[in-house]
């Protein structure tokens, strides 16, 4: 069951007008190329679209301010941006722990259920995604990181390996374990919340 992972803006509305040439050339290209991957990485980790937008904004603001210090020998632009994103997500979670909710509610994930025509299927799918994301949030940080790189940003294992500075094989092992733990977590959750089913 694969779906198209390209950005899927609603309907056919075009992106609004854009003036070119006001960001540094490379940064402009990076923004164009990686904004979506960063957004998805963040969206996988945070509870709402609004939060994902805020955190993505923070990522690129920070990146822009640090752009002059970027060192191509140390990391690819994508890796660099995703590292900033990881820190921004951590900051976001820390602030939420102080004042809000980490729990994903059903009414907060309609943007994650694209292209499902029937209302019934959509509801079922929403419930399933809600459980998966809530399950993912109970995992260790390292598991969350590798899952969001893979299933949020859509990185292939070699890209994740480069990002984390580990071998391709180690990525596969980490992913495998993270999936196992997620499966156990979702399964456990299912038995713990049998009320009202």
């Amino acid at each position, binding site marked *: *069951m*694969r*779906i198209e*992972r*390209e*950005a*899927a*803006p*609603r*309907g*056919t*509305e*075009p*992106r*609004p*007008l854009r*003036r070119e040439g006001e*960001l*540094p050339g490379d940064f402009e290209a990076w*923004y164009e190329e990686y904004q*979506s991957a960063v*957004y998805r990485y963040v*969206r996988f980790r945070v509870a709402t679209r*609004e939060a994902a*937008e*805020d955190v*993505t*904004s*923070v990522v690129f*603001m920070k990146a*822009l*301010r640090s752009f002059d210090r970027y060192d191509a020998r140390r990391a690819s632009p994508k890796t660099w941006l995703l590292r900033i994103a990881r820190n921004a997500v951590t900051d976001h979670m820390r602030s*939420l722990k102080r004042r*809000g*909710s*980490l*729990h994903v*509610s059903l*009414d907060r994930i309609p*943007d*994650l*259920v*694209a292209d499902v025509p029937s209302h019934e299927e959509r509801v079922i799918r929403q419930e399933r995604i809600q459980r*998966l994301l809530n399950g993912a949030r109970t995992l260790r940080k390292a598991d969350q990181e590798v899952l969001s790189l893979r*299933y949020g940003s*859509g990185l*292939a*294992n*070699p*890209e994740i390996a480069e990002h984390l500075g580990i071998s391709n094989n180690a990525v*596969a092992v980490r992913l*495998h374990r993270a*999936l196992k733990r*997620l*499966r156990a977590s979702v399964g456990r959750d299912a038995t713990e*919340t*049998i*009320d*009202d*089913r």
Partner: protein
Amino acid sequence: MKSTDSFEEQLPDELRALHDELASIGYEERPSFAPELRTELVRARATGPAPDVRLGVRRILRPRLAAAAVAVGLLCAVAVPSARAALVAVLDVIVPPAPADPVLPAPPREVPVAVESAPSSAPPTIEPPRVLEEPAPVAAPTVVAEPVVVAPEMLNRLEAQRALRAAYPMHLQRRGVGGTVWLQVWVDESGATGAVEVSRPSGVSELDRVAARVAPRFRFIPALQDGRPTGTWIEFPVLFEPDPDRIERTLEPVGDPLSLPTLDASLMWQRTVPFDVTAPGRPDAVARVARARAEAVEQLARALPDADFVAAYGPAEAILAGEAPEGAPPTEWRAAVGAAFSDAIEAGVGTPASMLALGRIRMRQGLRAEARSLFERGLQRAIAERGAATPWVLAELHAERGDLLRARWLGADGVGRVRSEAFADSECTAARTSGRAASGYASVDRLVAWNYLCPMAMGGIFAAGFVETAAGSAGDLALMMASYRAALEAYPGHPRASTMLLLTFAAKGRWDDVLAGARSYAHASGGHPDALLLAGLALHRLGRSEEAAQRFEAALTRMPEEEADRLEDVAVLLEPADAGLYRSLSLAERRAWQASYWAARDRTPSTAVNERWVEHMARTSHAQLRFGDLFGDAAEVWVRFGRPNHVHVVVDGTGRLTEFWDYGSGPDITFVRWAPASRTDLTAEGRAYVDDLGSIFPPQ
């Protein structure tokens, strides 16, 4: 961006499915987000670091939009008052800037008021639409070089208002339910509308849906950027306001149930006759019910022999309820009052109220068929003779009939037997059986024995051999629902009809309907605690724990302290020794103990609510509403283990129903029930098993 490595191929099947699920999550990005963020980046680069980068685009834009909304809303509110039509207004558009550009206030092209759009057929009493305030001067842009952004303007305002008015549900208008829905709409460069989102719900989901459904019919002059048409998102409010003339006299609109004044809890909690108040100065909802009760008693009195009768057997409220007052010998009381009403009805002076009272007495005498006949006659009389019954009496008659049908339906729903041959393929050495039942169906005793000795076999046996009896439960269900609905038509917010109807939706898993119904119920009843419990239950099931917690807390403050204490009680979750200690505590000590008990079990302490407590409240509320109290075996199991995954009900020809509650692992928990009574007791085996479970693993 799909990865092409072979990782997924190496995954075992059970992880592969999870991998596929995760990989299939769609990410629907707001189309204007990327350009908006880019604009912010450009600005940040031009002006230096942003003062607070934590504010994202959305948070930067939102306050500005909100401010613009207020300003333009004040300027441009459009009203279409009509003596006959509900007021439905599309307040004027609030225009965010074209996404790639800085925020500028839209220049005042003109005051977009639909003065000319007043319907020509409107009666002379209609007030003309008016501008609420003169337009305020718009501050000149401080950055001269910024491009001029011109807001979209609605072209077909009159048509839009007509469409909204036509779509405004009549039942909401009658109840006086209105609200303001904020929509975000994409307007493309041709002025057509694209995607529609409800950005700020009204609190009435039906209104939100109506607004979102009608919005694609709006047409606009597109936004202009430097004189060129451009697509943009706009945000604007749609106002639904019921016409006062349309609101039914008995249905005073009420506000948010959570913000209603606290009523006298002891009066709110009685389910059959929820309010009994005549004191002046009570909130409208209570005073309304008090009036209805007084009118019903007045109608009842017409069928009574004389005023001395009430003095001897009253008060009149007790007679209407069919319940002997305290101190009166019930059997004798029922015989005397029943005879008086029978005589009156035979003499032709019976009223629907007296038929209601007599029907209730007959119910308590075990004469269900006669009771139903009396309720039916009361309904016929009330319908044939306008004014013969008050809305309250009419609703009570419908609800009583609904209750009778509910008992029958419950006695037949999902009931069946298990064919003997289903046991053939199941091996259970512990439960040897000899021969085969002559009827071809397994005895209940055999099922119960296999259930506890060979629980692993039971799933297969039920799957292969359970045959539902051909009872007319579907017909009873339809009639029951129709009866409760009729009760609510007659008297919106009728507590028992509302609760039973919504519990039926809950049994079918229709939680959105339960939530919508609970909201209507709460509004119509002035915030009945049952309505709040049902809303909390639905919100919990829909995954909205924080809102569910709010509803539960509001319900607890609105019921008598001892009821609230029962719902929050955790004794059934404790080991017997601990439960004894817990029960010996004072109320205040129990409350403090509960707080620490739940705090220790909070799965996600970082969240604002304790999900365990919410879950417990959902279980106790559901059990309370479903079983009528929390004292029985069924309620105890429900609170400890939640709702069963599946229930099989087996008949044995004696009128006894044996229920098998399946919780997914281990034996099913078994109950007996005598149809059509709703009392459900554990079997001896079930009790032993549940007690064992208490010492094996903690509940939940």
